[in-house]
């Protein structure tokens, strides 16, 4: 079965520091991968998605970037964090189950920028 991992689970970083969040998927090959952000008390906003190694699409202009160095690895980065980068970051992969494309989410990373 497929599993998705994210780390770290929680991160507290000062403004201006760099960021690297990692997401890995097991049990599938060449998955579509996604990074979402959830601000407090709100729904999810798609940040980036990737359909293959080195292929990144950005949904919103921002202080963040994404990379996919390996088939099942997706990384979210920043060179200098802003206070507004605080939030809950979720990684997801898309699978085909019962003939229907469905996104499945990882456990998430809580980021607090101080």
């Amino acid at each position: 079965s497929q599993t998705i991992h994210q780390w770290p689970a929680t991160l507290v970083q000062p403004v201006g520091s760099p960021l690297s969040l990692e997401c890995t998927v097991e049990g599938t090959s060449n998955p579509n991968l996604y990074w979402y952000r959830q601000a407090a008390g709100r729904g999810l906003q798609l940040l980036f998605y990737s359909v293959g190694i080195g292929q990144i699409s950005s949904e919103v202009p921002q202080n963040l970037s994404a990379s996919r160095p390996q088939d099942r690895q997706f990384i979210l980065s920043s060179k200098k964090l802003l206070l507004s980068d605080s939030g809950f970051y979720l990684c997801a992969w898309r699978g085909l189950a019962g003939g229907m494309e469905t996104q499945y989410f990882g456990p998430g990373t809580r980021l607090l920028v101080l």
Partner: protein
Amino acid sequence: AQTVTQSQPEMSVQEAETVTLSCTYDTSESDYYLFWYKQPPSRQMILVIRQEAYKQQNATENRFSVNFQKAAKSFSLKISDSQLGDAAMYFCAYSMWGAQKLVFGQGTRLTINP
């Protein structure tokens, strides 16, 4: 642009009772998918149920069922025999067929009263 609206920020129900969460969406597409995700206090997004727009039959998963009204662009979630473990934020989401993006509503916080 597609939008998803959940008009009930909070709902509560007595344990063992039935509750219905509302969701409406706006799209000009005819082929799409609809989802309900549950986000418990751990904040991991868990798939509850999904529906393909071309299927007229409402999806069911154990105690969870939907009322899909395509013409009205409505996709409500019914939880029967509510249990304490059902307490969570519930998000309605839309995806155009073949698209990468999931569009989420703002969520409904469901409280189960013992």
